């Protein structure tokens, strides 16, 4: 089978995003989900074959390093699958007006396409393009909340994001200036000679900051709480769940392929630690559930950064586990938070209105803080055992940070659970409004229920998933294989040298 199917990962959603105005109503509404389903199927297929061996595609058959390269290893395939599935689960089925809905659906699809592109891109330029695409779609979606607060938040996000893009672009330019190529495989090949110096590191740092805006990296994550608090829940879920993970993936690839340097790892580690500390502690004092989730996701991504900073496939495995786990849990929590937004005090007694919703919240919370046998525990286990195995004391410190912030996380999440099950605030205040207000709609329950089902399935299948995960991490860590796959010629020339 031709690997040109790879292009569909990007092409299908884009097509579905821009075709609808030309189509009649019924098909129009189904086109997006259909495209996503196809991408998901493609993801499953790709995952199965790439577990054995990665594939790459040179678009238009321009051989690298000249052309546009898509590279899919099992990690990328899994992310493609995840992008499709999560987008599907967070699909905007309803809107205020038809026009509004069209726009939302289109933007969502663009976002999905961009995310898929980020997952499979094999060169930095494409990465930048897809990243910009995702950013634009993200601004559009975030502003779609319609409220003034949402617009203000989006505006700030926009400034920060643009500045970030600029920095990333600057970094990419520096790299190009030094190495003369943007193809990742090529870069991996050239990096030891050209980029492993302060100059290269500076470029890495700029890219880190730039992409870090989306990945909620500490220093550039200040937009997150406001956006998540004001945007629609499913948008928050997409941004926190999906986009951040893909930015993370790109950074991880960059780290593995081009900059496997202790300084780069150190930067990642320190920023990750700071992100975890600030995020989780800030969430401790959050007074509404959406901001709390936003900060929590900053913390979780910090944990992922810490994980990726661990050298070797063990760290990658841990980072992947954390990222994927967060991808499963956080969107679902944001879905639940849609109706339960606002001050935490409002939640009192909500469990009586929506017992199933409260149970789901508890399940996600438990997984998030890493209670075995839920998947979150295995992610945390991988992270900690990876950190403990490092000789550097900074890694042990990071382990300590992870442990302490987990305690903080447990406290604030359980505070919410306590609120949910506490005495009904409705008793004292206007009961009817409250009752209606706090009951979760069936669609929300169905959405997060689906995530919960996935989570539980992963929990049950954990013993059988460890081997693929390890394999994925190995593949991702194997930069020689990457180079060899994308640039067979260079690899052979290397070998002959």
């Amino acid at each position, binding site marked *: 089978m031709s690997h040109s199917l790879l292009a569909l990962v990007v092409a299908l959603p884009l097509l579905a995003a821009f075709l609808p105005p030309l189509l009649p109503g019924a098909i129009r509404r189904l086109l997006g989900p259909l495209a996503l389903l196809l991408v998901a199927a493609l993801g499953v297929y790709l995952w199965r074959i790439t577990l054995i061996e990665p594939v790459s595609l040179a678009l238009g058959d321009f051989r690298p390093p000249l052309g546009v390269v898509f590279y899919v290893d099992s990690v990328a395939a899994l992310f493609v699958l995840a992008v499709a599935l999560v987008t599907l689960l967070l699909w905007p089925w309803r809107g205020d007006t038809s026009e509004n809905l069209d726009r939302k659906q289109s933007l969502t699809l663009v976002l999905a396409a961009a995310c898929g592109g980020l997952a499979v891109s094999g060169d930095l330029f494409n990465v930048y393009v897809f990243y910009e695409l995702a950013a634009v779609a993200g601004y559009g979606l975030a502003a779609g909340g319609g409220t003034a607060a949402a617009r203000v938040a989006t505006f*700030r996000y926009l*400034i*920060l994001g643009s*500045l970030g893009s600029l*920095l990333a672009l600057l970094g990419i330019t520096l790299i190009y200036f030094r190495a003369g190529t943007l193809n990742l495989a090529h870069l991996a090949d050239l990096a030891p000679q050209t980029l492993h110096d*302060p*100059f290269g*590191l*500076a470029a*890495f*740092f*700029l890219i880190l*900051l730039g992409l870090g*805006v989306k990945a909620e990296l500490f*220093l*550039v994550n*200040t*937009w997150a*709480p406001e956006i998540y608090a004001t945007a629609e829940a499913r948008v928050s879920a997409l941004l926190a769940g999906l986009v951040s993970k893909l930015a993370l993936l790109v950074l991880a690839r960059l780290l593995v392929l081009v900059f496997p340097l202790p*300084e780069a790892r150190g930067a990642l580690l320190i920023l990750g630690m700071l992100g975890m500390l*600030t995020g989780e*502690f*800030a*969430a*401790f*004092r959050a007074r509404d559930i959406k901001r709390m989730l936003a*900060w929590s996701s900053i913390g979780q991504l910090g944990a992922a950064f810490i994980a990726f900073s661990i050298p070797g496939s063990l760290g990658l495995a841990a980072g992947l586990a954390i990222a994927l786990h967060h991808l499963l849990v956080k969107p679902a929590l944001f879905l639940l938070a849609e109706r339960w937004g606002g001050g935490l005090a409002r939640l009192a007694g909500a469990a009586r209105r929506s017992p199933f919703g409260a149970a789901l919240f508890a399940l996600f919370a*438990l997984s998030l*803080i*890493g*209670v*075995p*046998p839920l998947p979150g*525990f*295995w992610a945390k*286990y*991988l992270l*900690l*055992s990876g*950190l*403990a*195995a490092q000789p550097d004391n900074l890694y042990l410190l990071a*382990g*300590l940070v992870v*442990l302490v912030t*987990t*305690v*903080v996380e*447990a*406290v604030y999440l*359980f*505070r919410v659970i*306590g609120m949910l*099950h*506490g*005495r009904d605030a409705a008793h004292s205040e206007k009961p009817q409004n409250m009752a209606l207000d706090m009951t979760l709609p069936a669609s929300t329950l169905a959405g997060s229920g689906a995530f919960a089902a996935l989570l539980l399935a992963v929990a049950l299948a*954990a*013993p059988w998933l*460890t081997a693929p995960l*390890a394999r994925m991490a190995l593949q991702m860590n194997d930069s020689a294989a990457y180079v060899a796959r994308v640039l067979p010629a260079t690899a052979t020339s290397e070998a002959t040298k």
Partner: protein
Amino acid sequence: MNALDILLALSALMPPAALLFGRWRGYAWLAGMVLTGQIILLAGCDLPLAAGMNLEIFGRSVGWRLDAFGRFFALITLGVALASTVYMGGEWGERHAAGGHSPRWLHGALAGNVLAMLLLLSSQDLIAFFIGWELTSWAGFLLMAQGGEKALRAALRYVPYAMSGAMAVLGGLALTLAWTGTLDLAALTGIMPTLDNTKLALLLALFGMGFSIKMGLLPFHLWQAPAYAEAAGAGTAFLGAISARMGLFALALLLVKLMTLTRVADLAFIEGLFTARDLLAWVAALTIVLPTFTALKQNDARYLLAWHGIGQGGYMLLGIVIGDATGSAGGLLHVFNYATYQAALVLAVFAVMHRTGTADLNSLGGLVTRMPLTFLVMLLGIIGLAGLPPMNGFVSKWLVYRSLMLDGRPLLFLMTVIGTLGTILSVYKLIHNTFLGQLRAEHEQIREAPWSMTLPMLALVILAFVTGAAPGLALSWVAEAQAALGLPVLAYTLGGIESPRGNLDMLWIVGVLFAGFGIGALLFYGAGGRSKRVHQLDNYAGGHFLSADVRYHYSDHFYAGLMHRIGPFYRSSFTRLESAVAAATDLAASLMQVWYRQTVPALTLLVAAVLGLSWMIWK
């Protein structure tokens, strides 16, 4: 399928069964029968047993294997669960359900606890152990949170403690893996003692802290009393009697089996004078004294018992830390003994609550004529808790005392005795304020608790009495557990121990005691004039005419003189410590939020970029 598989499978079936059928009246009997079956199965099987289920995760095997040490705890767990389940299944459960609580969740939480504990007790490696540990913690949380608003608040207070403990254990687990390359408990037994002192000390600190929190050792004890006291009745009994002992199980495993006590004694703070082992012993001793002292100040029967539960844990740990045959047998036996009478006591308090609606020690009194069986339970229970003959609590404490005496630890010995004396004072207050003194007018029509409640309580205290008179019955399990753990094994007889340095024969002591009571009764009832019962208002009041509307009863500030002296001793410094940590967290959180509230994030971004670049370039 071997016995352990069946055991675990049955336990795994019960939580869903409880959630499905918990509302059905017969469920308690069904669960009771299952638990009885499990007890018989467990008591009869040959150990050690490895479970058929074996997982392979990240290249490490995760498995379950039960030895005699685990079985000892497992039997206690199942027994207490049995008593609690039966208690829950009757009138108490109906009242509980009528109060808007869910019997399904309560049964489910209890069954979940049993399952979690069995998993923990039979874990074969640290991952299985941690899974069991966390499940126990959260199942415990579920059980704690069942009693309404206050219970929920207390349970939430438990969360940071439980989580800190879990994270400490997890950290220890990660370091163990990094330093030894294995997580298998059997393999670790050989490797861990060979680690150097720094590593061992760090592991001891991490694991020790995690386990101490569960056990409620000082200074991590504050969560336990409210969490256990406010839970729903039968849940409180289960939590109080056995839940916290999981911490002891883990500590014993760590100290004795994995690290070995001699290695722990190598970790010296002051060379030759004060080692980690001494530190543990002193923590245990302080855990005996200070919580007992707090218990003495309680005015709520449930809290009083819960605080004593914390204090009693100290005896168990102290016995194990001494580590000789007598002391460790005492410590382990105390787990069993304590479970029997503590469960009975808690159930009795909840029986009183069931009838009177309160556990406030200042609003009760004189119930002995109305609830004589409950009184009997509480009487035998407090004799056990206070550690007086003829109940079993005496035997285990005696073993601990004796080993402290022979080990030459006068101050520790003194602490244990002070704990016992304080307990006597406090439990007398408990029984006096509940059952003795003046019967309140509003309680005159109260009836004895129903059989579904009195039977489990009576069964427990009878067990406590029988194993007090013939401690050999329980000591056989203890000796097996000692052997499995690698401790010196106690040479016991049916009546106690025989040793050249002082014997204990409870058969004789109990026999003579009851003969003495018999003679006393003969003297009292046989000799002298007839007596006539008088009404409680026919009482000396300096010539005053008593009437039922005026309270003639002494309950509040019961030990005024004692409190005058020791009341200000440590002025709730632990509570202050706890609030200080909470406040510090809150402050840190506020500071962190400042970061996210900045008005010009773009500027920060630029500054960060410049700074980062300069760091990268100048490094």
